[in-house]
């Protein structure tokens, strides 16, 4: 009802007062639009090879130059953004939901379940992500879905642990006891009372997690463990450009800049979100 729209209105009002956060939001929105409309915006087919015009500097025809096969770098960057944001969106939403569920189970459930889940989380977290990814790719071969899978498996424990801690802290709060005393079921307490209390920190965490996930995808693709070749990805653009750095710096710049922008945009936005939603900072109404 009104409380939902009030929530977003409050975020927007807060952003208006925070220029850095607003900058972050603008960068995020521009990146999202650029990826969604990549097909319309890209001046060339990102896969179109033109060996006569390879490794060109920017021209009116190729705004960001061409790579070693003469493909238009700008088009590849736009389509690479699609890959990056798709990975971020899918991986984060799945790991967030699963982590939320498992974290609530661990935080609210019986002690034995908590211990079992925490052991699982810790086991998963003890693998270095890249080594883990290498092992999985060795088994299944490089593909985008493998990248998403690896990110999901390694992110679930991160979300679950935070949800678990927050749930445990809330579990013994008076208002949860009051709900119990008023006959609320466990599912009702979790969904209607715990979830709204942890939604804000989770949202902030997810927003701050986007650059990490995008970086991970780029890293894996750079190593050749992510998307398979002709498909453009910021990581593979960097990899291609890196081999020809002496001939042309443009592919490296074009592949690296969006990574920096994603990081800056989501971090600014996330930090601003945290300042707006942090209950300790938002006690403005006071008593009347």
């Amino acid at each position, binding site marked *: *009802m*009104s*409380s939902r729209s*009030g929530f977003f209105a409050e975020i927007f009002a807060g952003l208006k007062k925070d220029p850095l956060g607003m900058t972050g939001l603008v960068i995020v929105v521009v990146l999202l639009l650029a990826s969604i409309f990549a097909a319309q915006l890209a001046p060339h087919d990102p896969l179109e090879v033109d060996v006569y015009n390879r490794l060109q500097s920017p021209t009116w025809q190729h705004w960001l130059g061409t790579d070693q096969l003469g493909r238009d770098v700008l088009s590849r960057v736009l389509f690479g953004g699609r890959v990056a944001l798709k990975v971020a969106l899918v991986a984060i939403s799945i790991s967030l939901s699963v982590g939320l569920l498992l974290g609530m189970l661990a935080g609210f459930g019986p002690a034995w379940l908590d211990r079992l889940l925490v052991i699982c989380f810790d086991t998963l977290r003890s693998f270095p992500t890249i080594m883990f990814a290498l092992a999985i790719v060795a088994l299944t071969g490089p593909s985008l879905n493998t990248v998403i899978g690896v990110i999901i498996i390694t992110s679930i424990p991160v979300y679950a642990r935070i949800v678990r801690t927050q749930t445990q802290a809330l579990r013994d*709060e*008076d*208002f949860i*006891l*009051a*709900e*119990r*005393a*008023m*006959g*609320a*079921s466990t599912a*009702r307490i979790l969904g*209607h*009372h715990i979830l*709204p*209390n942890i939604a*804000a920190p989770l949202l902030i965490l997810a927003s701050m997690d986007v650059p990490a996930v995008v970086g991970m995808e780029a890293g894996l693709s750079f190593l050749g463990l992510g998307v398979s070749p002709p498909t453009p990805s910021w990581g593979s653009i960097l990899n291609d450009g890196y081999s020809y750095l002496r001939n042309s710096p443009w592919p490296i710049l074009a592949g690296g800049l969006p990574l920096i922008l994603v990081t800056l945009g989501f971090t600014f936005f996330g930090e601003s979100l945290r300042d707006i939603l942090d*209950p300790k900072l938002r*006690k403005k*109404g*006071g*008593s*009347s």
Partner: protein
Amino acid sequence: MATPVLDIRDLSVDYQTDRGVLHALRHINLQIEAGRIVGIVGESGCGKSTLISTIIRLLAPNATIAAGAVHFKGRNLLDLDPDGMRALRGNEISMVFQDPMTSLNPVLSIGRQMTDIQYRDASSKAEKRARAIRLLERVGLPDPAEQLRRYPHHLSGGMRQRVAIAMALMTQPALLIADEPTTALDATLEVQIIERLKQLQRDFGCAILFISHHLGVIAELCDEVVVMYAGELVESGSTRDVFLSPRHPYTRKLLECDPARIQKASRNLPVIAGKLPDLVDLPRGCVFRERCDLAVDVCTREQPRLDNGDHRAACHVSGR
């Protein structure tokens, strides 16, 4: 005599602790008739909270009900399965908590919480809102429709406690348990809330079990008083009888310690010397013996039983 709404028979509750079994409640007998306000007084650790947790069956996991029965409208609550008990909570038995600053969900608006709590009801959202507004009016909150839009941190402690009371009365319960609902409030607010509770009790006709260690509030509000000490019920009777002619030495000392009764200015508040007995290793005889001025030989040997009548006390010495 009508059947009481709540009838607690010979209730004993133990806690398993590292030191051994702690006997938190021992042989409690307590009846609350429909529409009566019964107060429970006693110092911290006397078992007040354990008693209410037992009634609503939300005891800590290390607690066991050693003996007894809690009959609510003729049904033994201790025999109910968890779902059956949950159906009663917030429906026929409601509760108001001590600290209004923490007993409301901080991130949900008052309106959302008040409509949410009516989830058992099939009526429309508008009806639920209307009912919430009516209830807020009844508890004396100004501009109730506006309050629904606000969040707990916008409200003062007194306003929040009114909201909590409105939420507890929403389902017209037969029994309202109030766990020190005015302790966290200042004196003027306390009086207002007490007056309001009295009024609401008359309107709704529910029985109230009111826990407090503030004797003035009990005297003002309650029809009957139950005095607890170290997990036992030591005296019970009408508020008038217990306050005007206390029979148990503990009740007398408790009344002497009430700051409202002190006539002369003094730096030192009166205290009851000594401390609560160890509930893991209970002494033989009367639990209050070690702090009692009247203790005689028989008090060390035999545990006093509550006598019969309207004004009952568990003491070998006084009032016989």
